[in-house]
């Protein structure tokens, strides 16, 4: 294919002033089949993500099989891992429930003496796996990452500083769906037909 600068795309968040670009729902929720249609209400909308954006890491571990002459005659797949990492810089109950499990997050309504209180009980356990969708855009082009079965974990340190947002570093280990797939990449080039 000839070079075409218009096909150089960026991954800006497709978000509004009120709805974020990271979404999650229970495993088994129907994944989107296009990159543009708004997600239905069963998807929880996440908040602001840091300027580092979202990183998808795919690793295919292989082993080479040499023949008698020691040349490689075949390469076998040994393992596959897909991981998505990003950081929420918005602290809210929905995000914390996704990260630590809903049963570990208690929300107490505001009173005349205190605001809404979110209490998170953190221990040696994992939150339930979820399906995730990341909505991205570049002009009228749209990009989506869909993870049918991803295990969220907190990745790294939680740093409290006066001049930085509290940042929840999330790592999503991508598990398989019923078709044996872990990650779906959807791209809409925005060039509609007549």
């Amino acid at each position: 294919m000839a070079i075409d600068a218009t096909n150089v795309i960026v991954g800006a968040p497709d978000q509004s002033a009120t709805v974020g670009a990271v979404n999650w729902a229970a495993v088994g929720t129907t994944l989107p089949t296009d990159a543009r249609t708004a997600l239905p209400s069963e998807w929880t909308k996440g908040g602001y993500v840091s300027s580092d954006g979202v990183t998808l890491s795919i690793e295919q571990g292989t082993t080479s099989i040499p023949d008698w002459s020691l040349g490689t005659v075949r390469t076998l797949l040994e393992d596959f891992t897909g991981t998505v990492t990003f950081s929420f810089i918005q602290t809210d109950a929905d995000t914390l429930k996704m990260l630590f499990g809903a049963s570990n997050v208690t929300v107490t309504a505001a009173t005349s003496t205190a605001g809404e209180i979110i209490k998170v009980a953190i221990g040696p356990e994992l939150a339930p796996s979820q399906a995730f969708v990341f909505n991205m855009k570049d002009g009228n082009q749209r990009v989506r990452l869909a993870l049918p079965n991803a295990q969220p974990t907190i990745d790294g340190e939680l740093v409290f500083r006066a001049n930085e947002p509290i940042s929840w570093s999330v790592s999503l280990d991508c598990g398989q769906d019923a078709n044996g797939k872990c990650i779906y990449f959807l791209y809409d080039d925005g060039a509609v037909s007549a």
Partner: protein
Amino acid sequence: MVREWTASVLSIPAATYPQASAQRPYAVVNRAGGPVDYPHDYPRYSVQLWCDTDAQGETLAYQLAKALPSITEAHERINAVGNAELTQLGYLEDGGFIWQVNFDLATNIRD
């Protein structure tokens, strides 16, 4: 589109240069820099707020800064927006004040 968005958010006139007949407050919107790497453009915008009082300028500047995340919804070409920088530029000979709001956009200008 930044000019239109500014006028809409602040409900004051906005133009790309000071209008001779304009009554304060009004906004002057200019591109102040930023690289183009087609099909992407990363303009830096300067919005000057010409006001009768210092307090009015400050109020409008913060109002614009607070609304800035919504500019990504003003046009599909706008991919992202940076943080606002606010500066009080000083006062005019007739007693008016100018506040300035600078911010960066990331846009797609594909034909």
